[in-house]
């Protein structure tokens, strides 16, 4: 009974020298997995390929506006080169032509721009639900950071990096532009507390008592006469343009403020009374209409009251603080109804043209004739500018929650119509100072306010070329009728295309 002896030789001799040629369980399993895993991946991709579905290869989800193209990558990824009906070349990058099949995109500053970027370089796809209009600021800065033009000097500031960095002041403020409006309005007075309003009652005017968007014109006005407003809203008076129809979209017609009108904002306080015998005002209209109205009223009156011929005229006008009277312009006593009407009309118009109307309007008087009589004055156009930055995108509706005065800060101290009261760029920058994902910051991309494409240069209506079936992928446009793709066809095309 010998003990166990284990030498290196005896231990070595225990092994089968051809052990490495055998396939053990683990070796078989590992080999099987090495085949199985790539095979699974291959079958997965092949399965998509057989269905002509390139979804797995997508570099990211499509934007919501393009999601309708679904699995039809070729809607945008058309072959770069084509020879007749045959696709040539390997690359299928998205070309501008593919975009322009469905979209209009007027060129940006065509005469000045040194190069035109491709659509896809600014409108980045496959990054999810972000709106494609939201281009990165860098796309603009690539030119506007160091602006060069084909010839001459740039009209715009040549080094703008983003909204916070070197963005110039808005043009009307930068150039100290004076408002060319002719309506004399003192904002400081009108915003003062305790201002006398209708019936000599103190009031505190709010911005929206005078300034509203077109969509809000039909809502009740605090200082307007409803019947007059209704008539004005349906007239073609330039002070009260036709309102767009109310739509479902909450922001429609609420982007910009409409020009304030006399009917909606002024008439309760600034009545146009022309004679003490009449409680009603003259219409807020052209001088000829006003003149005809006065003559009509006085003629009617004298017919009913012939004994008034001997009474000296005494025009007056009621102001909110009491009665302001003017001495009669003419001490003449009328001898006939016609003369009475003429004299009283002259006095009433003298009051209106030289006092009442002139308080707000700029009137131009014609030369007096040889008898010392003058014709009707000419009222200067109001020139109210509803939009001061016509090339920028802005919506008051988006800023609905903000108090008007917090942005239009100079309004409460402005005493002249010529003051331009739009907010400065600094006011906008207080909020629009970065990424909206950070607390206290609002987005400040160029796209928020600016348009790249020259939409005003659109040459004509867009001519669509695709049917619903084509964009949805039910019809490839090559045959006479919608084609249902068969698997065999798909495989063949997969290898041939």
């Amino acid at each position, binding site marked *: 009974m010998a003990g*166990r002896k284990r030498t290196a030789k005896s*231990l070595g001799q225990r092994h089968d020298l051809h052990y490495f040629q055998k396939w*053990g369980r683990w070796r078989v399993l*590992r080999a099987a*997995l*090495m085949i199985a895993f790539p095979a699974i991946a291959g079958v997965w991709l092949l399965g998509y390929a057989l269905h002509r579905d*390139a979804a*797995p290869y997508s*570099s990211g989800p499509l934007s919501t506006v393009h999601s309708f193209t679904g699995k039809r990558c070729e809607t945008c990824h058309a072959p770069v080169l084509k020879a007749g009906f045959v696709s040539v070349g390997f690359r299928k990058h998205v070309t501008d032509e593919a975009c322009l099949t469905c979209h209009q995109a007027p060129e940006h500053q065509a005469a000045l721009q040194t190069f035109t970027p491709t659509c896809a370089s600014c409108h*980045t796809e496959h990054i999810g639900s972000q709106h494609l209009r939201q281009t990165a600021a860098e796309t603009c800065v690539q030119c506007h950071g160091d602006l060069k033009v084909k010839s001459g000097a740039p009209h715009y500031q040549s080094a703008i990096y983003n909204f916070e960095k070197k963005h110039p002041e808005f043009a009307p403020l930068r150039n100290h532009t004076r408002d060319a409006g002719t309506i004399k309005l003192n904002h400081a007075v009108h915003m003062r507390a305790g201002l006398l309003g209708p019936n000599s009652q103190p009031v505190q005017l709010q911005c929206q008592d005078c300034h509203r968007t077109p969509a809000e014109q039909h809502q009740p006005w605090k200082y307007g006469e409803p019947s007059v407003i209704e008539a004005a809203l349906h007239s073609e008076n330039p002070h009260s343009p036709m309102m767009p129809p109310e739509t479902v979209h909450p922001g429609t017609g609420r982007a910009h403020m409409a020009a304030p009108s006399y009917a909606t904002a002024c008439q309760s306080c600034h009545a146009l009374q022309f004679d003490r015998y009449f409680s009603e005002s003259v219409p807020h209209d052209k001088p000829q209409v006003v003149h005809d109205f006065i003559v009509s009223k006085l003629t009617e009156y004298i017919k009913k009251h012939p004994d008034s011929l001997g009474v000296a005229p005494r025009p007056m006008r009621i102001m909110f603080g009491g009665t302001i009277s003017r001495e009669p312009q003419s001490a003449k006593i009328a001898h006939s109804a016609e003369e009475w009407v003429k004299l009283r009309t002259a006095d009433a118009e003298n009051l209106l043209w030289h006092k009442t109307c002139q308080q707000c309007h700029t009137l131009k008087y014609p030369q007096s004739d040889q008898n010392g009589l003058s014709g009707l004055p000419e009222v200067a156009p109001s020139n109210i500018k509803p939009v001061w930055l016509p090339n920028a995108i802005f919506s008051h509706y988006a800023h609905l929650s903000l108090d008007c005065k917090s942005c239009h800060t100079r309004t409460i101290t402005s005493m002249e119509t010529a003051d331009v009261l739009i907010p400065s760029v600094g006011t906008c920058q207080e909020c629009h100072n970065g990424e909206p994902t950070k607390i206290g910051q609002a987005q400040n991309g160029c796209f928020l306010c600016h348009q790249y494409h020259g939409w005003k240069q659109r040459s004509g209506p867009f001519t669509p070329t695709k049917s619903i079936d084509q964009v949805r992928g039910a019809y490839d446009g090559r045959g006479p009728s919608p084609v249902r793709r068969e698997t065999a066809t798909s495989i063949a095309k997969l290898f041939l295309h």
Partner: protein
Amino acid sequence: MRIDQTHRRWLWGSIIGLAVAGAIYIPYDYFTIGGARGGTIVGIVYGIIGFAFMIFAGLLSLRKRFPVWRMGRTSTWMRGHLWLGLLSYPIIFLHSGFSFGKGTLTWWMMVLFTIVIVSGIMGAILQHYLPKVMTRQIPYETIYAEIPRIRAQLLDEADVKVAEVTGVTMSESSMAAAAGDTGGVIVTLVQMEADVRDELTRFYSTEMRPFIEKQRGKGYSLAERSNSVAMFANLKTLLPQAIHPLVDDLESICEEKRELDKQIVLHRILHGWLFVHVPLSFALLLMGAMHAVIALRY
């Protein structure tokens, strides 16, 4: 493979490579409209470099299949596999602009890539530490694939030894092997009481033989060394002095079996990660190739 001084050049090369790639990435990301992403020229370059590293790492398998090829030492390939494979991960992140893949394919690729890299790092750590542990704990370490064969040999050896003293044959194969060793004659050398012989036979047939026979002895009393020592000491008290050398041999056989069991466990830990790492690497390379072709096309 131990990560020792011989890896220093690879380590520094990888750090410098990563630093250069990172230094290029910062201005590239800053000045690129829309930020860094795979489709830009620089992004494509990152992608090509990263994929080249992945392919090189994958070629290690091929290199091992043909050890006689004169294409550099396998150890050098292994170091390259380890460091370039590791470096490919951040390079691919630079390629993607630190996105984990927005598309289905790219997302799955990044998932597989992460699993491959994590399993590879785990494997490198295990390969660094475990061989030393095995050398210390398993003096009679053998070739893993030969463990069943060795175990069978141990069983035969134990059968013969027990038969020598008890005259009880446990299997024909062991007796045949023993007969071959002794020139065709099995001799019982020790005379003993019947009950003592029965006790030895019972111990061997119920405790020891099943333990040796099973691939993994887990659950058997003899699987624990402390139990084994106690059981064999107890057995010696029941058996005559003359048989104690036999008992020592049987205990030695059990000890060797325990080492084989431990080797199986450690081997599976040491190489088990390859079942994840290697197949997924091949799948990743296939998907990477498809991604490269399609991405360059579209």
